[in-house]
């Protein structure tokens, strides 16, 4: 006898059955076959938003692609180019069937020409390949990098081109892979959609908040005793989400990964919602939370991040390619305690110069991270400009 009772509140996604298909059906029920309008109604009512970073309402995206003339392409994005993120990898190893269910449900309802799950080069594809057997979909293991998971860069790779972004003037929902309308959804979004399709919008909304329903996966790293992936209600406080990982002397938390913003330890009771995080210039993004410990220099950390981001530029767009290394160099000088009072202003000038001037949001995200760093750690910056570091309580080096 199979049971189809909905999973417990905050273990909706992570309590998967691995590659075991029979156990998956026993726990979650058979794969539902939904017509497009029924699926759209359920997803719209659920209020599901993308879990890949942009948080865009999923129903709107699906509707845009399904409304096209040609048969569309559906892509599951598990590229996870952000080094601090591992939620998609964990989800795909624990619950590959649920992610693939989401892909199949969409592909059927939209009469898709192709359904592809895209994973990165370092990903252990064995469980998902096993789960994909017998399903009408492809698993593509592609080249990685920070920008490779960007929507248009992924579409380019699937078209056999280099993994760099396209000019966003033409949206992939209109013309993407093979010139067809293309729906790109994060792997976790697909899993959430598979749950909505089975248990309905009302069930989905029984977790989270009215404005931001459901649960979400968070990857927690840094100064914590037990780093890893946590599933929590949307709208939980930062403190509650971090609790299972046991933070160690936190000074601040980077919310949103390398393109995110800082929440100082005084703000740990902030709810992880768009509205409350706006005050910090942050957003939930892909649920990446990195805890900076009290003994670490935030400017040194930031310089390292921007150096990494500069190196990961796709190198197509002049402002990003040239501006980011300048910002990285200036931040490194700042972290080193260089007594040059013009450094913060110069970093801000270069930030204003690169923002919005590129084919993707790489420079914009970098600018957000840098601006947050200089703002939240303002006192720190002042100290560094005088030659010493408060965090490490010695001369900056």
């Amino acid at each position: 006898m199979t049971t189809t009772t909905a999973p417990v509140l905050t273990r909706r996604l992570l309590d998967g059955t691995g590659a075991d298909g029979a156990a998956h059906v026993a726990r979650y029920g058979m794969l539902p076959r939904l017509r497009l309008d029924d699926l759209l109604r359920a997803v719209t009512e659920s209020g599901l938003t993308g879990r890949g970073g942009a948080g865009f309402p999923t129903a709107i995206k699906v509707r845009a692609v399904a409304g096209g003339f040609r048969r569309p392409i559906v892509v599951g994005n598990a590229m996870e180019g952000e080094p601090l993120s591992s939620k998609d990898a964990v989800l795909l190893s624990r619950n590959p069937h649920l992610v693939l269910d989401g892909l199949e449900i969409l592909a059927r309802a939209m009469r898709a020409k192709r359904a592809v799950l895209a994973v990165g080069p370092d990903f252990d594809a064995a469980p998902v390949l096993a789960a994909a057997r017998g399903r009408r979909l492809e698993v593509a293991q592609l080249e990685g990098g920070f920008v490779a998971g960007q929507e248009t860069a992924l579409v380019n790779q699937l078209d056999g081109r280099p993994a760099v972004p396209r000019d966003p003037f033409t949206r992939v929902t209109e013309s993407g892979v093979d010139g067809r309308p293309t729906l790109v959804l994060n792997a976790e979004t697909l899993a959430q959609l598979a749950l909505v399709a089975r248990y309905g919008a009302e069930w989905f909304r029984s977790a989270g908040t009215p404005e931001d329903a459901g649960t979400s996966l968070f990857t927690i790293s840094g100064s914590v005793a037990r780093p890893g992936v946590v599933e929590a209600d949307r709208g939980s406080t930062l403190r509650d989400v971090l609790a299972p990982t046991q933070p160690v002397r936190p000074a601040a938390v980077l919310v949103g990964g390398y393109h995110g913003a800082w929440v100082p330890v005084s703000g740990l009771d902030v709810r992880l919602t768009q509205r409350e995080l706006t005050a910090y210039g942050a957003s939930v993004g892909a649920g990446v939370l990195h805890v900076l410990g009290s003994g670490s220099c935030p400017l040194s950390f930031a310089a390292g991040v921007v150096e990494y981001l500069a190196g990961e530029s796709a190198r197509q767009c002049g402002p990003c390619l040239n501006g980011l290394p300048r910002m990285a160099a200036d931040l490194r000088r700042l972290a080193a305690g260089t007594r040059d009072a013009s450094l913060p202003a110069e970093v801000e000038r270069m930030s204003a110069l690169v923002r919005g001037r590129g084919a993707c949001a790489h420079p914009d995200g970098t600018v957000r991270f840098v601006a947050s760093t200089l703002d939240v750690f303002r006192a720190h910056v002042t100290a560094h400009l005088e030659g010493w570091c408060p965090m490490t309580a010695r001369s900056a080096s």
Partner: protein
Amino acid sequence: MTHADLVSALWALGRGTGVVALVLFTISIVLGIVARSGRRVPWLGRFGTSDLHRTAALTGTGLVVAHVGTLLFDPYAQLKLVDFVFPFLATYRPLWLGLGTMAVDLLAVVTIVSLLRQRVGPRVFRTVHWATYLLWPTALAHALGSGTDAGTAWFRGLAVVCIGLVTVAVGWRLSPSYADRGWLRHPRRTA
């Protein structure tokens, strides 16, 4: 005007249009290199350099059409229509004339792709445009070999000046200081 005068006039027109076209293509190739360099030319500006490069090329192309047209109707040249498309079939100086035919073929491809560049995209446009470096020497060789004026002092002088200009421009094009349009930049990934 007698028939002989008319034929003489056609012959002169044929040669004249050819020579002027060659000069215009020389100007165009040099301006093309200056335009690609991104350097600002006083009074013209970067956009003016591009505009003039294009105008010179199109005017030269128009003159080549006239050049080919007058020669088609010239009884002394003894050319058939096929000679304007397939090289080396003519009875009069087939090698040098054949080069002219090849130049016309190349010119046709380059011109058509340039006029349609918005449709074919930057990569195809750029690749085909490289053929201008083959087009110019072919046209020059054709002029030196089959042109009746090739032996005259003024034409030789003109040819030397044209060759000199193009050599200097191409030399600059190949030099390391030419790169990145004159700015201190990281090189972009293209296509």
